[in-house]
C-alpha cells in the first residue's frame, strides 16, 4: 500500500470518527474503536438504548460481558462526559439486514453493581448475564434465574474481578515466587 493511499485512508477514518463522535445514537454517545461503532451508556440509559436498538433492527444479541477496570494502567476518557466506573458491561448487537454491529459499553459502579436485564428483549442473554454475575458479581435486575452458571453454586467470590487472585499454587522455577 503506498503512503498516499495510506494517508488518505487514515484521513477518511479520522473524518468518520469525528463525525461519529459528538453525535448521539439511540440516546448514547458514540465513539469508534478499530472500525467498530461503540455506544456509551449509563445504568439509567442502558435499557432505553438497547430497546431503541432492538426496535431499529438489531435483532440478535451477540455477546454480553463485563470488564473490571480496577487495575487499568491507562487513562480512561469516555465521550459524552460519562464518568468511568469500576465495572463496564459490554453488550454486542448485530443487525443482520444491514450487516451492522454495534457495541454498547455501560459504566456500572462498584458500590451498586446492578443493571437491568436484557432477558425481555433477547432471551439469549440469560446465560451471558448469569456468567457476568458469576464472574464479576454484577446483578441483573428482573433476570429469571440470577444464579451462578460456571462456578459451583455455593462458591464465594467472583473470580474475574481484579482483586480475586488467580489462585496459582507456587511452583519451583516459576517467576511467581522465589521462595523455596
Amino acid at each position, binding site marked *: 500500500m503506498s503512503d498516499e493511499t495510506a494517508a488518505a485512508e487514515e484521513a477518511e477514518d479520522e473524518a468518520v470518527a469525528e463525525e461519529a463522535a459528538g453525535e448521539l445514537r439511540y440516546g448514547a454517545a458514540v465513539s469508534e474503536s478499530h472500525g467498530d461503532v461503540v455506544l456509551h451508556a449509563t445504568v439509567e440509559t442502558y435499557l432505553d438504548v438497547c430497546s431503541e436498538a432492538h426496535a431499529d433492527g438489531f435483532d440478535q444479541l451477540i455477546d454480553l460481558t463485563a470488564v473490571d477496570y480496577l487495575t487499568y494502567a491507562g487513562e480512561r476518557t469516555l465521550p459524552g462526559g460519562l464518568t468511568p466506573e469500576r465495572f463496564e458491561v459490554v453488550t454486542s448487537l448485530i443487525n443482520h439486514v444491514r450487516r451492522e454491529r454495534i457495541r454498547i459499553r455501560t459504566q456500572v459502579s462498584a458500590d451498586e453493581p446492578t443493571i437491568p436485564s436484557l432477558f425481555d428483549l433477547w432471551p439469549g442473554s440469560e446465560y451471558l448475564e448469569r456468567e457476568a454475575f458469576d464472574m464479576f458479581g454484577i446483578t441483573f435486575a428482573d433476570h429469571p434465574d440470577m444464579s451462578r452458571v460456571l*462456578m*459451583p453454586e*455455593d462458591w*464465594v*467470590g467472583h473470580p474475574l474481578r481484579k482483586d480475586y*487472585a*488467580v*489462585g496459582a499454587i507456587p511452583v519451583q522455577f516459576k517467576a511467581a515466587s522465589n521462595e523455596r
Partner: protein
Amino acid sequence: MRIPGLGDTQSIANNGLEGMDHNFLTGNIENLVSWARSRSLWPATFGLACCAIEMMASGTAHYDLARYGMETFRASPRQADLMIVAGRVSQKMAPVLRQVYDQMMEPKWVISMGVCASSGGMFNNYAIVQGVDQIVPVDVYAPGCPPGPETLLHAIFTLHTKIESGELVRRREANGGGAGITIEQRDGQTAGLTIGG
C-alpha cells in the same frame, strides 16, 4: 478350614486372590488371574476435555484399543475396572470424579491421562484441581497435552505390566489404597476436605 497348598478358606472368601497362600502351587493361579485382568481392562467413560478426543481416537480403528480387550467403554462404573481420567478436573467436577471412582468395584486402576489430570497442566489457577491424585489414587500418569494415542497405549502397557507383576496389589495394601491427602481450599472457600484411604 485349611486347604493344603492353597490356604485358609475363610481368608480366601474374605480377600479373594490376595487371601491365598503365596507358594509355587498358587503362583500359577495368581499369574493366570493377573494376566486375565490385564488383558480385559474395561475403561469407564471419564473423558472430560481434549484428552477425551484422543482417548476416543485410541479406541477407533487407527489405533484400536480392541486389540487389548478395551474397546468397551462402560458407561456404568460398576462394570468398569479402569478409570482413564482424560482431561482437566474442575472444582465442580471433583466430587463427581470421586463418586464415580468409589462406585467402581475392586480391583480398580486409574490412569491419569494428560498433564491437566496429572498436575493441573498449564492451568495453575483457582478453577482446576492441581492433579487428580489429590482426589483418587493414580497408578499411571500419561503426560502430553494431549497425549497422542500412542502415549496412551504406552501408559496402558505400563499398567498391564504392573498388574501382571502384582506390584499394584501389594502397594495398595501398604498405604491403604487411598490418596491420604488433605485438600485445603484456597481463598476462604468451603472448608478443607480430607480424602482418606
